C-alpha cells in the first residue's frame, strides 16, 4: 500500500496509546448492521504499472483532438498552452495546497488570485472580478441570480444566441429559485429579439458575444435598452481569446461579464475542469458570488493579500450568502494567469488576430464547397454553416476521412429545428492542411 505509511507495529502502538483493543472498536458508533466485515465487491489494490496500463488503455480508445484535422468549438477550444504553464501548476506548493485560509503561508496562491482578478477585470473592461467560478455556464447562472438580488426582479431574458448548455444550466437553477426565464428561440442573429423582450419586470438580459453561432455582436443598443428599463446587462463569452480582438463587454455597457476561461491556459479535458470568469461594475461588488482576494498589510506593514468580503459567503452568512460556492477553480485560474502573463497584451492581441485569420481562411475554404452556406456574418474564430444534409450525419461521415468536422448544433439543442447547422471553429492550432482536408471531406460527403 504505497500511499499508506502506517506499519503494523505503528498501528499496534497507536492503539495502545488510544486504549482501544483494535481498530474496529473505533467504529463502534456505526450501527452494527451497517458495518461491513467483508471486502466490497471491487478489485483489490493494484500497482502503478497495472493502473497505468488500464487507464492508458482507456485513453487509447479515444481519438485525441490533435490526432488529425479537428474543428470543434461551441464553448471549448483547442489552443496551444506553453509547457511552462503546466509545469508550474504541478509544483507541489500550488498543486497540493488548500484554499488560502491562512494567508501568512498562502501568499503564493493569494497573489496569483489578485493578479488573476486584475487580468479578468482588464479583459472584460469592468472594475472588479472574483477569484473564479466553476466554469462559464455556472458563472452565467450565478450572474442571473445576482441580477435578481440587485434588481429584486424575477425575470431574466436569455438571448437565442446563448449557448444552449448555458441556457439550460441557468434555467435549472433559476427555476428552482422561482425566477421566470424567457429563453428566446435559437437564432443566428438573435439580438433584435432581445431588445423587444425587455420590459419593466426584467431583472437582466443575457447576451453572448461571440454567440454560439460565432456571431460577434454589438451589444451597445441592448445595454441602452436594458438600462433604460432598469435591468442589468450580462454579457457571456465562451472563447476568452476573443477579448484580444474584440471590444470588451464593459466598453459596450455590460454590468456583469461572465466567461469560460478554458481557452487560456487550460486543456480541453473532455469538458472539465474549466474556469469561470466573473466581473462586475464596482458598485455591485457586495452582491457578487464567490471568493475574492484583496490587498492589505501585515503586522510589519508589508503588502500582502487575503481572502476578503467573506460576509457575502456561505461559511459566514450561511443561508443569507450570495451563493453556496465554496471550492472554485483555483488551479485552472493559476494556469489562466500564467498563460496570460506569458502572452501579455501583445501576445494576446497577436493570438486573437491569428485565430481570426485562421477562421477567415476556414470561411473562404468552406464557402467554396458546393452545398455549404456560411451563416455567420461577423465572426471571431468560429462560424456556423448550413449543410444540405443532417449535420450530425455529416460529422459521422467525415470521421471516415479522419476529420472531426465540428459540432452539429442539434447536439446542443435538438429542439431548435436546426439539424442542418454545423458549428466549425479554427484556432492557431489549425493548419492549412487541416482546412483543406475538411473542405475536401465535406465536398465528398455532401456530393
Amino acid at each position: 500500500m504505497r500511499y499508506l505509511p502506517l506499519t503494523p507495529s505503528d498501528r499496534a502502538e497507536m492503539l495502545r496509546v488510544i486504549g482501544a483493543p483494535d481498530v474496529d472498536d473505533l467504529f463502534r458508533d456505526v450501527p452494527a448492521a451497517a458495518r461491513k466485515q467483508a471486502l466490497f465487491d471491487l478489485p483489490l489494490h493494484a500497482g502503478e504499472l497495472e493502473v497505468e496500463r488500464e487507464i492508458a488503455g482507456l485513453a487509447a480508445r479515444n481519438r485525441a483532438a490533435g490526432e488529425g484535422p479537428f474543428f470543434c468549438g461551441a464553448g471549448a477550444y483547442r489552443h496551444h498552452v506553453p509547457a511552462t504553464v503546466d509545469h508550474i501548476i504541478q509544483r507541489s506548493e500550488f498543486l497540493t495546497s488548500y484554499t488560502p485560509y491562512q494567508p501568512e503561508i498562502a501568499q503564493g496562491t493569494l497573489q496569483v488570485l489578485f493578479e488573476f482578478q486584475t487580468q479578468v477585470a482588464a479583459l472584460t473592461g469592468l472594475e472588479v472580478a472574483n477569484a473564479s467560478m466553476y466554469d462559464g455556464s455556472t458563472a452565467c447562472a450565478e450572474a442571473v441570480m445576482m441580477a435578481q438580488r440587485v434588481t429584486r426582479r424575477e425575470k431574466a431574458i436569455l438571448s437565442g444566441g446563448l449557448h444552449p448548455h448555458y441556457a439550460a444550466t441557468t434555467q435549472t437553477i433559476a427555476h428552482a429559485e422561482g425566477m421566470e426565464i424567457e429563453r428566446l428561440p435559437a437564432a443566428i442573429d438573435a439580438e433584435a429579439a432581445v431588445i423587444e423582450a425587455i420590459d419593466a419586470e426584467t431583472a437582466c438580459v443575457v447576451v453572448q458575444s461571440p454567440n454560439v453561432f460565432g456571431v460577434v455582436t454589438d451589444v451597445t443598443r441592448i445595454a441602452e435598452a436594458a438600462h433604460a428599463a432598469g435591468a442589468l446587462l450580462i454579457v457571456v463569452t465562451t472563447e476568452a481569446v476573443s477579448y484580444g480582438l474584440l471590444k470588451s463587454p464593459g466598453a459596450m455597457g455590460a454590468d456583469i461579464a461572465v466567461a469560460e476561461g478554458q481557452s487560456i491556459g487550460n486543456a480541453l479535458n473532455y469538458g472539465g475542469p474549466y474556469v469561470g470568469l466573473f466581473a462586475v461594475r464596482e458598485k455591485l461588488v457586495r452582491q457578487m458570488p464567490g471568493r475574492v482576494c484583496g490587498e492589505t498589510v501585515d503586522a510589519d506593514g508589508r503588502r500582502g493579500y487575503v481572502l476578503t468580503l467573506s460576509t457575502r459567503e456561505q461559511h459566514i452568512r450561511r443561508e443569507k450568502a450570495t451563493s453556496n460556492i465554496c471550492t472554485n477553480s483555483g488551479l485552472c485560474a493559476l494556469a489562466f494567469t500564467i498563460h496570460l502573463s506569458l502572452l501579455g497584451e501583445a501576445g494576446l492581441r497577436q493570438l486573437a488576430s491569428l485565430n481570426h485569420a485562421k477562421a477567415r481562411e476556414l470561411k473562404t475554404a468552406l464557402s467554396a464547397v458546393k452545398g455549404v452556406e456560411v451563416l455567420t456574418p461577423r465572426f471571431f474564430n468560429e462560424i456556423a454553416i448550413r449543410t444540405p444534409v443532417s449535420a450530425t450525419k455529416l460529422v459521422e461521415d467525415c470521421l471516415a476521412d479522419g476529420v472531426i468536422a465540428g459540432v452539429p448544433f442539434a447536439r446542443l439543442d435538438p429542439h431548435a429545428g436546426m439539424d442542418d447547422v454545423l458549428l466549425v471553429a479554427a484556432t492557431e492550432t489549425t493548419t492549412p492542411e487541416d482546412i483543406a482536408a475538411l473542405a475536401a471531406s465535406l465536398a465528398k460527403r455532401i456530393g
Partner: protein
Amino acid sequence: QDEPLIFETGGWQTTGVDLPDVPQDASDLGDLVRADPIGLPGLTEPEAMRHYVRLSQKNHAIDLALYPLGSCTMKHNPRLNEKMARLAGFADLHPLQPVSTTQGALALMDRLAHWLKTLTGMPAVALTPKAGAHGELCGLLTIKAAHEAKGQGHRRTVLVPTSAHGTNPATAAFVGYSVTEIAQTADGRVDLADLEAKLSGDIAAIMVTNPNTCGLFERDILEISRLTHAAGAYFYCDGANFNAIVGKVRPGDLGVDAMHINLHKTFSTPHGGGGPGAGPVVLSEALAPYAPAPWVVSGPDGLRLVEEAKDEAAAAFGRMCAFHGQMGMFVRAYAYMASHGADGLRQVAEDAVLNANYIKARLSDVMTPAFPEGPCMHEALFDDTWLEGTGVTTLDLAKALIDEGFHPMTMYFPLVVHGAMLIEPTETEPKRELDRFCEAMLAIARAAKGNDSARLKSAPHLAPMRRLDETLAARKPKLTWRPDTTAPLAEVAAASA
C-alpha cells in the same frame, strides 16, 4: 522577500510566446475591434518562471508537512494521477466530439460510477457537479424534482443541524428552500427529539453530515432516516467526511437518499489552492429518475451520452453545467480508487480514524476535547476551555503552529463548539509526523499556559508574512491592482505604449 506583481514588472509590449506573423485584417469586424489598450503586462518565459516559482515558495503544501485542516481532508496526492489525467486521450479530448471517438472516456466515467455506486450502496450517481457545494445543489434539485413529481411541491423547508457546513443552508436557500436548524445533543449528535418535533408535511429534506463536523458518527443514523422517511422527507447526506468510512460502511445501508462525494477529499484529487473539485452525487432508487443530464448509458454501438432531458431522461430536473462534469478529476479519482482497491480503501478509513484518535489521545492530557467520550472518527475536535485565563486564543494557537512548520487545524468550526480546533490528519500521515505535530502542539500548549504567551499572540514569526490585517482588507477593498495614478489601467498602458 516581496515579490512584485506582474503589473509592476511586466512590459506592455513584452511577450513570452512566439507566434507567427499574420495579416492583422479584421476589417469585417468594423468598430467591434478593441482599439483601446487592454492593460495586460507580459513577461518573457524566464521572468514568468521565476515569478511563479518564487511565489510558490510562499505557500504551505501537503507535500511539505502535515496539513491537518479539519473537514478538508488534505491527503497525499499521487503524481500517477496527474500523469494519467494528462494523457492526450483525456486532456486533448473535446466534450462535443462524436461519442464514437470518446469511448474510452465514457468507459472511464462508467467505471468511476460503478465504484462510487458500489462503495456507497446506492443505485445511481450524477457525475456532473463540479464541487461539493455544487453536489449539494444537485442533490436538493433532485429532491425538489421528486417532490414536485409526486405532488409534494408545497414542501418548502429543509432541516439542517447547527453544526453543518455553511454550504448546507446556503444551498438550501439557493434553491428556494427556507432553512430550519436542528438542535445538537451534548454528545455532539443530532437531537432526535428536536428532529422529530420539526419534521412535518412542510419538510422537503434533512441535510445531515455523517460522520458529522464534530468528527463523530451519528449513532442514531438509522432512526434519523426512519423518521425522515416517515415524514415524507428525503435524507440528504453531506459526504464531505466519507473518507472516514469508505470501504467499511455504505451510506445506502443507512437510509441516505442523496449524498455528494468530494472527489478532492476522499479520492485525493489535488485541492490546487482552492479547486477544481468534483462532487458527484449518489442517489437512491426514489431519486434516481430525476438526476440531471448528461449521463452515460450502454447501447448497441457502445457507450453513449444521454444529454437531453427527454425520452429516457424525461424526468431529469435539468442540467448542472455545460458538458459532462470534471473529467480531469474523474481520471485522477479513478486512478486513486484502482490503486487502492477494495482492501486499500478499507484501510484508508481505518488508518484515517486511527490517526485521528491517536492525536486525540495524545493531546487530551493538556487540551480539552469537545467530546471526550468515545472515539472520534477521522478528525479530533477540541474546544478552548483549556485556554481560559491564558489570554491566548484558538487563533493564536493556530498561528503559532505555523512557526513549527505545520499548517494550522481548522479553527472556529464547527460553530457549535467554542473556539473549536478541528484536526484531521488523514490516512497518509506517518506516525512520525503525527508525533512531531503532537509534540509541537504540546510545546505550544505549555507556552500558552506558561508565561510565553506573548510569542504566541504575535505569531507567526517565521512565515513569509506576519499576521495580515483582514479588517482593513474588507473595509477598504482593493481587489485589483491599480497604478499609483488615478488613471485607468488601460490609459497607463496607452501612455507607456
